């Protein structure tokens, strides 16, 4: 299980300078090991380098310094680019800007078609991928008739049909309503648990980050924190200092604790919070 699938080795990347944008590294000295089957959330405020980090994972960008390897392949090796991209797929923020075809199943087939896979095999993969994201019944729909959450699931199916080991989602829930977000989140979690797909989930929503196995916080082009959600959100002050939110439940628990109520540490979800508060109330009643 502890096999490394993506490894960043002291990676730095700087975009070319533009007029009003002086040269400044977008990613600086990043060291990161992503293990097969992990579910990683990446947090960080705007411009902290999250998208750049994502693009470095599948050779869309190549590091200026250091080295990124995907399943042992160096992303700067041009002959390996397509082998890397069939291992690491990417889903973007705007669902409309990543769907290429006028029919759902044709869109899902786009990746495998590019890989030159025979038609019968593509058919099989497309059906399987669509069932996986629970969009099989919509396979003949035109994408513009779908909701945002459904479009993102189609995009995910398009990646699955390439049989990638790892999916990177760059704020893929940012444009969705709460229901669409839940759909996408549930799908991703299921893929991770049941199919062992490695997930790198870039998000602004703390409540989504809490569900990950591991949280990486980016700040100012560097990795600022890296650990389990409990470890990362334990230090609320540190997170707030760089201008990020903490999960509401964690914040509430923290405030209660600071005002002298004995509530355990490591509370992240609202269920845990409710549970803890109930225990305190019950103890009060008894006492």
């Amino acid at each position, binding site marked *: 299980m502890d096999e490394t699938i993506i490894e960043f080795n002291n990676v730095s990347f700087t975009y070319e300078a533009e007029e009003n944008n002086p040269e400044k590294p977008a990613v600086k000295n990043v060291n990161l090991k992503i293990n097969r089957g992990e579910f990683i959330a990446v947090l960080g405020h705007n411009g902290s380098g999250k998208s750049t980090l994502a693009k470095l994972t*599948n050779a*869309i960008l190549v590091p200026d310094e250091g080295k990124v390897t995907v399943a042992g392949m160096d992303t700067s090796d041009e002959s390996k680019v*397509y082998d890397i*991209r*069939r291992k690491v*797929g*990417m889903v*973007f923020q*705007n669902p*409309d*800007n*990543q*769907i*290429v*075809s*006028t*029919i759902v*199943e*044709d869109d899902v*087939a*786009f*990746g*495998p*078609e*590019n*890989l*030159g*896979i*025979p*038609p019968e095999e*593509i*058919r099989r993969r*497309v059906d399987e991928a669509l069932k996986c994201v629970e969009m099989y019944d919509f396979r003949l729909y*035109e*994408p*513009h*008739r779908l909701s945002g959450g459904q479009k993102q699931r189609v995009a995910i199916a*398009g*990646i699955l049909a*390439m049989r990638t080991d790892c999916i990177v989602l760059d704020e893929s829930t940012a444009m969705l309503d709460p229901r669409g977000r839940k759909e996408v989140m549930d799908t991703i979690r299921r893929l991770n648990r049941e199919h062992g797909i490695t997930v790198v989930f870039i998000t602004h929503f703390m409540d989504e980050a809490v569900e990950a196995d591991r949280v990486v916080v980016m700040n100012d082009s560097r990795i600022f924190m890296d650990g389990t959600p409990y470890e990362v959100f334990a230090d609320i002050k540190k997170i707030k200092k760089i201008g990020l939110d903490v999960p509401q439940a964690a914040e509430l628990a923290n405030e209660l604790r600071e005002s002298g109520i004995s509530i355990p540490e490591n509370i992240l979800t609202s269920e845990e919070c409710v549970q803890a508060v109930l225990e305190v109330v019950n103890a009060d009643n008894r006492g």
Partner: protein
Amino acid sequence: MIRDITIGQYYSGSSVIHRMDARMKIVLTLAYIVSIFICRNFISLGVMALFVAVTALFSRVPVKMLLKSLKPVLIIVLFTAVLNIFYTTGGSTLVEWRFIKITSKGVFSAIFMSIRIIALIVCSSLLTYTTTPTVLTGAIESLLSPLKIFHIKVNTFAMMLTLALRFVPTLIEEIDRIMNAQKARGADLESGGLISRAKALVPILIPLFISSFRRAYDLAFAMECRCYTGGDNRTSMKKMKLAGRDFGALIFYLIMLAGIIVVNRLFPAVI
């Protein structure tokens, strides 16, 4: 609602015409357009018109929809008919009043031209009614593939067509959104003369262009991530295959064409 617009004008069904290979449909439609201009008299034109009527019947596309596709060309039909009535002379004179002179030949050629245009439109609408845009682009790609020997990037061209089709509804939605945003800021889009209306379009087109560039950039990224190279070694999930009915249609058509050529020779030309 904008969500309900369909791209193209596909009428879903499973008739023989729907199931025909799209390449054969395109070829036959083009052949039809050419042959209808070969027709010289009412017998051959009648056969051609009958052919398209029978095809329409087989396709089970409702007559109402076919009429709808004729609506935009009605003006052209009327215009050609009127021109033909007044400017074609010959045969017996039917009406003569001051400088207006209507002859039998003029009336015949007006009717002839109208039938010709209507048959033409019905035939080509049948193609788009019974074929989805995606399949149509695939067929165009396949038909143009011999051009590859001239180093013309046929599959890139087909991809462009697909993407253009794909983004039609998205851009319509976008225009709607921008128009509402500009109206909310007090833009007046509906009144004034031609020039002031055209000017009012500028604040809609500029944001549309900017956002389209953004979309194109994102899309290019997304396509690269899914291993698109623009190269030749792509495969296709839906293989097109010519079946018996396609050859049947072709043979039937060729026989009809031969008949028309014979009829053209045997009977006097109307126009």
